[in-house]
């Protein structure tokens, strides 16, 4: 057994005691680290460096952080396809570069530099997404990060990018919080949100199903679910509907029978599924199995509503189940305007099948960022941010759009969709049909209804 002696006598042969070694190594380490504290603040262009600005070399690197594993891997794959297509068009012209107005994109890179990219895997998990975003920022020196399929992940990355001075162009995120209470100066969202869904969908619902309805909500227990449910309740009640109840369902649920039992026991005649992705696929399928599509309550047909639709979800649920179910989407490949068509054609030419709404928003976000850099004449983040704020544009699908400066949310048209019956489908990608295009004015709302501050232009 060794005894612990006092420090003074514990010197080894060379005359160094423990204390000396510790002191020396800490001084050495501090000395070695010193140079790094200084190089960060190199000046260029008259602007101080923020994030990975200034961009050195002949290339500028974008970071595409998408779910490559985990529950949303298929959607992430589609987003990645869109990103690669966007880079191809930025470097070579074509696609929406021909339709986007106003555009300063040359089709020959951005600000004289070719666009390169790196990819990361968010693993459909907020912590992993921050880790991979960090890697892209610190090692690969990306000037901008974009992507994601879930609001929790988008919000987590937004905070990170805001701290590090990197602009984050959101991918697919629908929660009000992303440009609501969690809005950030360095974060931008093009995709529509739950509030717009509620606003657009409720009138269509009351027209289809009547004003004398009672709705029961099943809500995924996380930020998006909550905001979606609140928005749906708010707007359906404005139409005169009653709300019979709301049950929170854990995210991990795959069997919803216990909740559906509660719904059937109530006096509700509309079931609102505030679910996305796997949750929606399971809850809708379960509901159909329970015969709820054919049920009658209060003398009316029981109806099911899925506020947020995506093609992947529709495919997962199967067309027999979504037949006639109403919901909303941000965009659909069947739209006939020039911007949408040019994008769809390019995507089909490249990959052989049409793009999803996730792909659309990611493609457009990439182009909008590049365009903003061109308009600002620099990659300096505060200048690019100002170029995006209150930017009015058109030709990117969805008609004329405003990138609102007050909350960094795009105000544009959106779609009310209906599931197609199996016999009406023309292909393996044709699950939903457009019932109504809701114009921008209807989708618009006052940004001050949500709390939250954007924060300063320069990171603290």
């Amino acid at each position, binding site marked *: 057994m*060794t005894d612990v002696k006092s420090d003074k006598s514990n010197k080894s042969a060379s005359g160094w005691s423990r204390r000396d070694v510790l002191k020396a190594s800490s001084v050495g380490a501090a000395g070695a680290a010193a140079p790094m504290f200084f190089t960060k603040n190199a000046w260029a262009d008259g602007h101080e460096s923020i994030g990975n600005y200034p961009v050195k070399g002949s290339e500028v690197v974008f970071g595409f952080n998408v779910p490559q594993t985990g529950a949303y891997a298929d959607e992430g794959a589609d987003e990645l396809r869109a990103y690669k297509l966007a880079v191809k068009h930025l470097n070579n012209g074509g696609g929406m570069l021909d339709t986007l107005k106003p555009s300063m994109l040359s089709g020959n890179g951005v600000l004289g530099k070719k666009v390169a990219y790196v990819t990361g895997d968010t693993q459909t998990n907020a912590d992993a997404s921050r880790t991979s975003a960090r890697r892209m920022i610190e090692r690969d020196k990306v000037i901008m990060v974009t992507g994601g399929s879930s609001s929790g992940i988008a919000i987590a990355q937004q905070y990170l990018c805001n701290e590090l001075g990197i602009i984050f162009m959101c991918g697919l995120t629908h929660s009000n919080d992303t440009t609501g209470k969690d809005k950030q100066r360095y974060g931008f969202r093009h995709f529509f949100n739950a509030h717009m869904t509620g606003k657009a969908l409720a009138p269509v619902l009351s027209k289809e199903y009547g004003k004398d309805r009672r709705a029961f909500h099943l809500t995924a227990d996380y930020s998006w679910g909550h905001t979606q449910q609140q928005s749906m309740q708010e707007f359906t009640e404005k139409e005169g509907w009653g709300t019979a109840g709301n049950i929170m369902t854990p995210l991990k649920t795959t069997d919803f029978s216990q909740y559906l039992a509660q719904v059937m026991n109530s006096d509700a005649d509309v079931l609102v599924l505030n679910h996305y992705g796997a949750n929606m696929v399971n809850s809708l399928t379960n509901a159909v199995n329970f015969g709820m599509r054919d049920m009658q309550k209060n003398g009316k047909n029981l109806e099911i509503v899925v506020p947020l639709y995506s093609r992947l979800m529709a495919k997962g649920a199967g067309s027999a189940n979504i037949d006639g179910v109403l919901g909303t989407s941000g965009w659909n490949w069947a739209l006939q305007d020039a911007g949408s068509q040019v994008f769809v054609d390019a995507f089909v030419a490249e990959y052989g099948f049409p793009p999803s709404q996730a792909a659309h928003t990611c493609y457009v976000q990439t182009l909008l960022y590049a365009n903003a850099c061109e308009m600002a004449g620099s990659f300096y983040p505060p200048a690019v941010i100002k170029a995006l704020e209150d930017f009015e544009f058109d030709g990117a699908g969805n008609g004329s759009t405003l990138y609102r400066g007050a909350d960094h949310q795009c105000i544009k048209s959106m779609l009310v969709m209906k599931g197609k019956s199996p016999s009406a489908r023309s292909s393996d990608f044709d699950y939903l049909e457009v019932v109504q295009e809701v114009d921008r004015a209807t989708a618009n709302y006052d940004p001050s209804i949500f709390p939250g501050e954007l924060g300063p232009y320069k990171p603290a």
Partner: protein
Amino acid sequence: MKMQQGFFERNRSVFIFALIALTMPFWFPLIGGYSGLDTKIMVFCIFVVGFDLLLGYTGYLSFGHAAFFGIAAYTTGLMLKGFSDNIIPAIIVAVIVSTLVSVVIGLLTLKRTGIYFSILTLAFAEMFHSMAMAMLQQWTGGENGLTGMPTPMLFSIKMQGDAVFYFITFVAILMFYVAKRIERSPVGLMMRAIKCNQTRLEYTGINARKYKLLTFVISAAYAALAGALMVVYEPFVGHEFLGWHQSGEIVIMSVIGGVGTLVGPMLGAAFMLYFENVLSVDLGEQWLLVLGMIFMVVVIFMPGGFMEAVSRLQARFTQK
């Protein structure tokens, strides 16, 4: 007095570790690493070293240590947001809270051995995980995670970039040293005795439960410290910190590295994080599959992990 080795010889592994760790910012980028990842590796080194004291020395496989990691992380985050952006009070409170929780859980779970113990710890961890997602959403941020923390400060130094790396590395070196001391102490002897044959130990009149609880709490304290430091490095707490997948990752790290060697699990942690963040980019979507296969190969053929491979190689060469 026998075994009068000098301080350097006895703690050789600590010094080697210190040397490798402190110079990481220089050599790590050469193999594709980057400055956030080395800090994260150091945090997990602390986590696994403590975990190895439990798994490697007493032989108890806990699937619940993520609970202590997560509780400390959430506490640190809440302290930073609500109390002060100075990390010292935050870390102290977080470690104390998490350790107290571990005492309670330890008292309850250590009554059972083997598989029952593992399942109990898993049940507890998942319970906390569910609570963080549902019941305590107001505090934890639910699925979004805990965000919006101020920049952590060590008194007047901002905890970012290199400052936070060196701070955490020093703590890691210190904690490794402490673990080594524990290993060499009478407590360490008891731990190994428990793994060897607990019944026989109790027949000699020693209260094994006391030592089991002590080891459990120590390993939980390590996990808690790692959780607190994780938030200092990355001001974000995800609910995944509490789940059994997180615990599973720690187990994988320990096993791949070599259970019971203290150094092995740290190698395992470095390897797994490197793999997950650097190699995964080249492997694409299937990196988890490859990692799973590596893990299986290690468990089947080389249960001692990397350290076993190293000692086998050493034996090969010395035989020549």
